[in-house]
């Protein structure tokens, strides 16, 4: 199973993302200026500050050359995981609904949060131990998830809300405590927390690894 991790100017969490993917498969970097996904099985859009978050976080990265292929790949059912800045880029690119706004407390928040898995049946969550919350760090200034109320209702009804911050854990004012969503098709997943920073006992929690493992399991045919 080969993961491709996109690298834009200003991306900084690509190395941890590649290392996390490499624990469950193979991982290669994909350069923003190329037009070649190099036959990867899944794409990860990692965290960081692509193009300095200039204009709006992800607004410029969304038009990088490689995004033409990523959008085409997603349209054809290819699996994409957008982490933090990657989630912002997916929303700007219309791959996911909603938008990420400035944290309501105006602070850069960097702490461990507890996440409830709301939809355990997605390609990204199906291998997780059921009913157990995930302890994963967040690290962002612009993580408040927003969508109009009617869209939020639809997301909840469709099972597109995948992760919520556990009660009293919401670090940024995200509406309905939403921490991660999938698209209608179920192949594009965006989350603000950083699972790639929670894959080794050295950093306190290995709860992030299950998201990468679930994706690997979903694509390797070991789960229908």
């Amino acid at each position, binding site marked *: 199973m080969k993961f491709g991790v996109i690298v834009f100017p200003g991306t900084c969490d690509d190395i941890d993302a590649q290392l996390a993917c490499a624990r469950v498969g193979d991982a290669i970097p994909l350069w923003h200026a190329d037009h070649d996904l190099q036959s990867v099985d899944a794409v990860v859009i990692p965290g960081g500050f692509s193009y300095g978050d200039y*204009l*709006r976080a992800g*607004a*410029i990265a969304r*038009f990088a050359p490689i995004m033409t292929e990523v959008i085409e790949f997603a349209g054809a059912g290819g699996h994409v995981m957008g982490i933090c800045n990657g989630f912002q880029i997916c929303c*700007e690119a219309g791959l996911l609904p*909603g*938008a990420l*706004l*400035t*944290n*309501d*407390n*105006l602070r850069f928040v960097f702490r461990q949060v507890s996440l409830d898995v709301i939809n355990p049946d997605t390609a990204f969550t199906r291998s997780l131990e059921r009913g157990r919350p995930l302890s994963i760090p967040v690290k962002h200034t612009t993580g*408040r998830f*927003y*969508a*109009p109320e009617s869209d939020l209702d639809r997301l909840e009804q469709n099972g597109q809300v995948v992760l919520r911050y556990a009660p009293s854990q919401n670090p940024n*004012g995200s509406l309905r405590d939403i921490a991660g969503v999938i698209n209608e098709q179920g192949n594009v997943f965006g989350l603000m927390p950083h699972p790639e920073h929670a894959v080794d006992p050295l950093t306190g929690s290995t709860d992030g690894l299950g998201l990468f493992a679930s994706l690997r399991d979903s694509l390797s045919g070991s789960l229908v």
Partner: protein
Amino acid sequence: MHARVLVRPKAGILDPQGAAAERALSQLGFAGVSEVRIGRLVELEVEDPAKLSEMCERLLANPLIEDYEIVDG
């Protein structure tokens, strides 16, 4: 020609930066200030001002969360 675009957060969406500026104004002693909202001014030279709307729709503003106004051009 010279063009100016104002990009504003949509009404009804929390603007914490505006709220922070409002609190600061109050702390400075300015009474009677409310509804502070902070947007963005984009100034540019364009040969074809007819393209400004599309520039706003595609890049300069996020239509889900922002309104834009072409003030010149």
